[in-house]
């Protein structure tokens, strides 16, 4: 990832964008924090939030006309939060705070003429920044008192005027400022600020002040816009003048970086989808609870749309803008640990975040690219995807691959491509599906091969290309048939791997040619769209049409179709981070009360692994007693067995090919496993064949350990990069295995 890419991604995630109220406030008071504190009845802390930003807070909070209210998101859910009322309540009930400590004097003098809100605010801001301010007014505060005095309780204005004195403002009540006095002020002081509405108009220059700087052609003179009635905008003018005067006296640009000085539009998006409409609570100055309740109507705006729908994004306790920086930093680390590797490998690459994000932030793109970079640089942790890639290699090996024309045919118009997980999980369904296709379509060949999705997800472009080459080879040898593909992930992947092939999903085909005989119809299910079907509206529609034809009552989970959730297998999450994958599966399982019907077998198996009843469409189209909603997900060893046996069976029965049986001696060993052993092996990704190898090694070498109490044996073997250990005993001519474990660390010069 380049820095430019990082900035672009960071910009796309709007979680840190300003809430609308803060952006709409001309002086950017943190209204969101204010409401949070008011909602906790922490009046003093809330007052400090206001006093931090507001000039003359005691006065301004009482007079504030709250333009923030017109921007408040709550206005569409009952009515804007009554921020003006809350400000007044706080002013009445919180402990006053002293004015801020001013910066040390810069030795720069500023004259302020006019004591309206603009003049007083300008004086406040500039004194705070260390300017030597003299405010010219015959009776400071009179203009403000005349304009808005009835809204100010006794003593409030006086206290703020006293604060101005504490800040170091000097009041000059004697000097009558005429145009010639103004001229000399401009000579002597470093800058002059005029409060247009509080002075005689003969002092005003002819030109309207510049909207960004409040400057006029006469250098050093700054003028508040005339006729501004809003107290907070008057205060904002005072602050703007202070900003300009600061830049002017420092000789730095008058304009750069001032785009967000006044009110601006923010990109933050806050969903109102699940927000109940609640009407405003009338705030009464002697009732704490009314203030608290009104403040609690504040939505505490933030986006987090993607985090709301994704367990993975929620798990890392932050949001994409932060994540992408963590990933960028991770890539840059030359020495030391890379903390973000697991996070990068835990994204399901499913595209849900991109779909719900108001700015289309795509975590999948970020993570997939990061994985590729890790692979390129040799930084991908071997154990993350190794098992899945080994499994893919096995599925593409000679024990599993089938590429044949229909029995008796020498050409294929179509070829059936069920995908490597269907053959592993439901070989019976595959067999029946193939038979059905042959019966009704004719020359349908069979192509059993992995599409390469695991390699893609693992960031292994080399293995992706290797798989593609093998696929192209076999597809061409079959005469470039149209492919009938069952798995939506295969559909997606094959489009890249075989760009010249015509690909139809089995579901769309069935809708076109009609249902097979003997289906199990009726019943009620919730439909689970696999995440690979997210951008396949036609496929999703065809599936629903099939379910309808089968007279199945279908409920849609809340997140469905384009917004469907991944089951936890996507992106190889279940390999790289099994604990998180389990939670993801559990979350999906809870999305519906009904049993699930789905059309990706991995979704079905993931649901089964967390105890959720689920069927694959094949279970309904080609029913059998053994294939019900409660059948468990087959273990890793069984998956391999299934593929091997399916191939053998089909070649023998359909194509009359005998196996030239070069049996692996390890396979000849008679071994059985206890329940505990099988469970442990599945959890630790240890295959039965791996244990067979251990037993064979033990038998051949005569070396093993024996347990003093149980008399059981313990032996090990390292076929390649993992060492396997097995606890076993002799049993009816063979062995019974009780336990197994493995490790990758190698014993130097140790046993094989």
């Amino acid at each position, binding site marked *: 990832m380049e820095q430019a890419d990082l900035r672009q991604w960071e910009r796309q995630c709007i979680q840190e964008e300003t809430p609308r109220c803060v952006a709409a406030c001309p002086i950017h008071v943190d209204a969101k924090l204010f409401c949070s504190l008011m909602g906790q009845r922490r009046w003093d802390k809330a007052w400090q939030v206001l006093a931090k930003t507001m000039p003359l807070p005691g006065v301004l909070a009482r007079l504030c006309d709250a333009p923030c209210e017109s921007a408040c998101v709550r206005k569409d859910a009952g009515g804007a939060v009554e921020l003006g009322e809350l400000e007044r309540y706080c002013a009445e009930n919180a402990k006053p705070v002293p004015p801020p400590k001013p910066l040390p004097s810069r030795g720069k003098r500023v004259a302020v003429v006019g004591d309206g809100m603009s003049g007083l605010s300008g004086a406040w801001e500039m004194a705070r920044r260390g300017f030597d301010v003299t405010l010219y007014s015959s009776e400071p505060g009179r203009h403000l008192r005349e304009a808005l005095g009835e809204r100010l309780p006794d003593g409030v204005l006086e206290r703020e005027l006293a604060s101005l004195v504490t800040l170091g403002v000097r009041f000059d009540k004697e000097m009558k400022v005429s145009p010639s006095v103004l001229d000399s002020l401009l000579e002597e002081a470093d800058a002059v600020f005029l409060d247009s509405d509080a002075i005689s108009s003969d002092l005003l220059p*002819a*030109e309207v*002040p*510049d909207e*960004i*700087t409040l*400057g*006029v*052609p*006469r*250098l050093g003179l700054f003028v508040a816009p005339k006729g501004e009635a809003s107290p907070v905008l008057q205060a904002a003018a005072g602050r703007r003048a202070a900003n*300009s005067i600061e*830049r*002017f*006296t420092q*000789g*730095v*640009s*008058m*304009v*750069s970086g001032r785009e967000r000085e006044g009110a601006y539009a923010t990109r933050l998006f806050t969903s109102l989808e699940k927000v109940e409409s609640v009407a405003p609570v009338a705030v009464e100055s002697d009732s704490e609870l009314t203030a608290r309740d009104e403040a609690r109507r504040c939505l505490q705006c933030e986006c987090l749309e993607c985090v709301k729908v994704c367990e993975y994004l929620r798990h890392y306790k932050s949001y994409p803008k932060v994540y992408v920086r963590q990933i960028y930093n991770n890539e840059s680390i030359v020495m030391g640990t890379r903390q973000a590797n697991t996070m990068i490998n835990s994204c399901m690459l499913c595209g849900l975040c991109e779909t719900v994000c108001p700015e289309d932030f795509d975590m999948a793109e970020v993570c997939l690219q990061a994985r590729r970079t890790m692979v390129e640089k040799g930084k991908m942790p071997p154990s993350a995807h190794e098992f899945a890639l080994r499994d893919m290699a096995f599925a593409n090996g000679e024990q599993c691959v089938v590429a044949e024309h229909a029995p008796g045919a020498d050409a294929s118009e179509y070829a059936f491509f069920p995908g490597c997980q269907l053959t592993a999980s439901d070989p019976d369904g595959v067999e029946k599906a193939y038979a059905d296709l042959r019966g009704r379509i004719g020359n349908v060949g069979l192509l059993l091969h992995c599409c390469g999705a695991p390699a893609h997800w693992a960031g292994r472009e080399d293995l992706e290309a290797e798989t593609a080459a093998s696929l192209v080879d076999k597809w061409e040898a079959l005469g470039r048939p149209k492919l009938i593909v069952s798995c939506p992930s295969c559909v997606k992947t094959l489009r890249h791997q075989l760009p010249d092939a015509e690909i139809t999903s089995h579901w769309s085909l069935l809708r076109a040619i009609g249902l097979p005989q003997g289906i199990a119809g009726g019943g009620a299910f919730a439909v689970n769209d696999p995440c690979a079907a997210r951008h396949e509206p036609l496929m999703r529609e065809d599936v629903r049409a099939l379910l309808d034809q089968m007279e199945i009552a279908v409920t849609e989970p809340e997140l469905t179709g384009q917004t469907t959730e991944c089951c936890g297998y996507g992106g190889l999450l279940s390999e790289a981070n099994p604990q998180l994958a389990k939670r993801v599966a559990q979350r999906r399982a809870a999305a519906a009360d009904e049993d699930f019907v789905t059309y990706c077998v991995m979704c079905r198996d993931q649901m089964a692994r967390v105890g959720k009843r689920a069927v694959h469409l094949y279970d309904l189209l080609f029913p059998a007693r053994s294939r019900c909603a409660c059948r468990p997900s087959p273990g890793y060893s069984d998956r391999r067995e299934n593929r091997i046996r399916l191939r053998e069976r089909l070649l023998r029965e359909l194509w009359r090919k005998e196996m030239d049986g070069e049996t692996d001696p390890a396979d000849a060993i008679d071994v059985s496993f206890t329940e505990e052993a099988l469970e442990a092996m599945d959890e630790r990704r240890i295959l039965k064949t791996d244990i067979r190898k251990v037993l064979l090694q033990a038998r051949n070498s005569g070396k093993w350990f024996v347990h003093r109490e149980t008399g059981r044996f313990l032996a090990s073997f390292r076929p390649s990069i993992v060492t396997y250990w097995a606890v076993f005993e002799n049993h009816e001519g063979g062995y019974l295995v009780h336990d197994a474990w493995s490790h990758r660390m190698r014993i130097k010069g140790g046993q094989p």
Partner: protein
Amino acid sequence: MTVGSVPLWEQPVLRQTAGETLRPGSFELTDRGADLLGFAPGWKILDVGSGLGASVNRLRSRYGVEAYGVEQSIRQLEQASDTSNLVQATGDSLPFAGGSFHAVLCECALSLFPNPGAGLAEFQRVTMPGGFLILSDLFADRAAPAEPGSCAGRAMPLASIRQQVECNGYEILRVEEHTVLLKDLAARLVLAGGGSEKECGCAGRKGLGYYLMIAVKGY
């Protein structure tokens, strides 16, 4: 482009259409030049061909720079609202000491000089070493027959303009094309104009464009 003897840029319709500035783009290119160079309080800027003084006022109000204007036409100066920073003079004979300014600005005026080269030499003279030149004006893709006194008639090819600038002691830093502003003004003139004014020939002619150039005077 004239009607009677009053040049287009002195006619009310142009003032009304283009705003107080009498050229395409209003303040867009003035601001762009100022932003690119980072104008800051304390800089001294000269606007040659300042017209009614709008740019001078703008630069002072917005950028806080000490901006002055030189304008040849007495008629224009009489119409300016405030002349305290404006001086009557021709661009090829500037009443300032050498090296007085941080930057000289000349917008939509150089092509009206009888001798642009002499003008550029003067600009260079009154600029401090390391100071800047901001030029914006028409240019032509092919040599146009000169219509005496009109903007469009005087437009030169960009290459010749570059050459002239470089020959007068400047190094060109940047040239940008902003022809869209020209077409926009021409369109508005068409809409705003009644029957008696002839249409501005500018944007209608092929191969006419508008440029912004920034150059620096060597040390």
